[in-house]
């Protein structure tokens, strides 16, 4: 067997839905998989497309971003290496509700509906795994409602900053998210993000330079985030 196909089969087998398919079905799916590479800022698919794919992120980071009529963006989902996404168009012929935007250089495997569904729709065990995956996504969406409906902008921004500091220890954090991107993640405008960052700096929680943030009062920021 071709080494490339064998590698894709290994990747597919890690996913609960595809793991329930037979070896032969996995091999056929692996043969049909198309791998594409993207640079930051490119689009994988656009809101409103009838988009009949399952995708698997090989590496990188993709965000599902919704644009308001006024042109403001809001990120509703982040996909990273080793995660899958089943387009809603596969289930109910509905268009893609958000644009899939590349936030970090990425490689993605595409599996077309015409290849995936004949195998999956005939396999009850695979379908129950699919429902389990969707139920988990529903939990994530519910958490997003809690976050956005019940928390202030200051709380949401504090949590976003703490997440970033958390992965870098005590070191300063490079400002690799733009104000637009931060606004898109926490559901507010870039202007509000900017105001709030400078408020945090004024009260001594963080130091802000043009290129990095430095955490100066972790307990204070945690208190605002509601984690203390």
């Amino acid at each position, binding site marked *: 067997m071709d080494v490339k196909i064998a590698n894709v089969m290994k990747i597919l087998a890690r996913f609960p839905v595809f793991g329930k398919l037979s070896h032969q079905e996995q091999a056929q799916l692996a043969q049909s998989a198309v791998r594409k590479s993207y640079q930051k800022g490119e689009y994988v698919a656009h809101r409103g497309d009838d988009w009949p794919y399952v995708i698997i992120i090989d590496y990188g980071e993709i965000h599902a971003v919704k644009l*308001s009529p006024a042109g403001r963006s809001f990120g509703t989902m982040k996909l990273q290496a080793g995660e899958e996404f089943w387009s809603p168009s596969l289930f109910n012929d*509905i268009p893609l509700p958000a644009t899939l935007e590349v936030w970090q250089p990425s490689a993605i495997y595409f599996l077309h509906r015409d290849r995936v569904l004949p195998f999956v729709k005939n396999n009850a065990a695979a379908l*129950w795994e699919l429902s389990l995956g969707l139920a988990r996504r*529903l939990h994530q969406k519910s958490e997003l409602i809690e976050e956005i409906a019940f928390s202030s902008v200051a709380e949401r921004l504090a949590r976003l900053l703490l997440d970033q500091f958390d992965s870098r220890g005590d070191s300063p954090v490079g400002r690799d998210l733009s104000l637009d991107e931060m606004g898109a993640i926490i559901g507010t405008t870039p202007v509000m993000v900017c105001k709030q960052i400078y408020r945090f700096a004024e009260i001594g929680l963080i130091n802000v330079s043009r290129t990095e943030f430095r955490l100066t009062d972790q307990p204070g920021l945690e208190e605002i985030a509601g984690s203390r």
Partner: protein
Amino acid sequence: MDALNNCFTHKLVFSKLSPADHAQLTRLAIRKTYRKGQFIFLHGDVWPYVLYIASGRVGWVMLSPEGKRQVVFCPKACDVIWGHSLFDDEPMPATLEVMEDSDVFLWHGEHIMPIVSRHVDAVWDVSRELVNTMRQIREVVYGFAFHPVAGRLARLLLKHYQPEEGQPAPRDLTLDEMADSIGTTRELVSKTLHRFAAEGMIEISRVQFIFTNRGDLEQVAGHDEG
């Protein structure tokens, strides 16, 4: 069990089962009646059930630790709710509150899953049901991210009353219920309704709304959903 037979055999999932399966589900169903204000499950409960609403209306409600309330969506007669715990054994992410007196049928996962599993088309429909639920939740998230209170209230009025221009619609939502649905206070709902009235979009009386300019209301609602 007549109430069960009326609509449920035409619903997603159930329409794919055989008459014998329907009969078995009818025998296994637990019928319950709830009064307005009761809870069917609470946020944090493990609830591995499927619920069919024969009559009435329930609310998928989220509560913050400070007691702030958000009604996410309101399933009504003929709708089916698949408990997330059925799939992942995890606690429910919301509370199911009875908004109007309701008559419901319940099946435990251990009873219903083997019956549904006999038909792959029905199992596929379970996924479609979950995707539909996800779409409703997503609309609420977008509403918060993009629309100020006026936009969210306009969307609620258009969705709930589905008004025809110039026709009266009885007011069956209280100010509190509207406020819970769009994440604001009753005072702000009242103020915004009167702003809509002053701008000629609706006429308000104690018992009804008349939608006098649906186009303007849709503009406020920012209708752009795909």
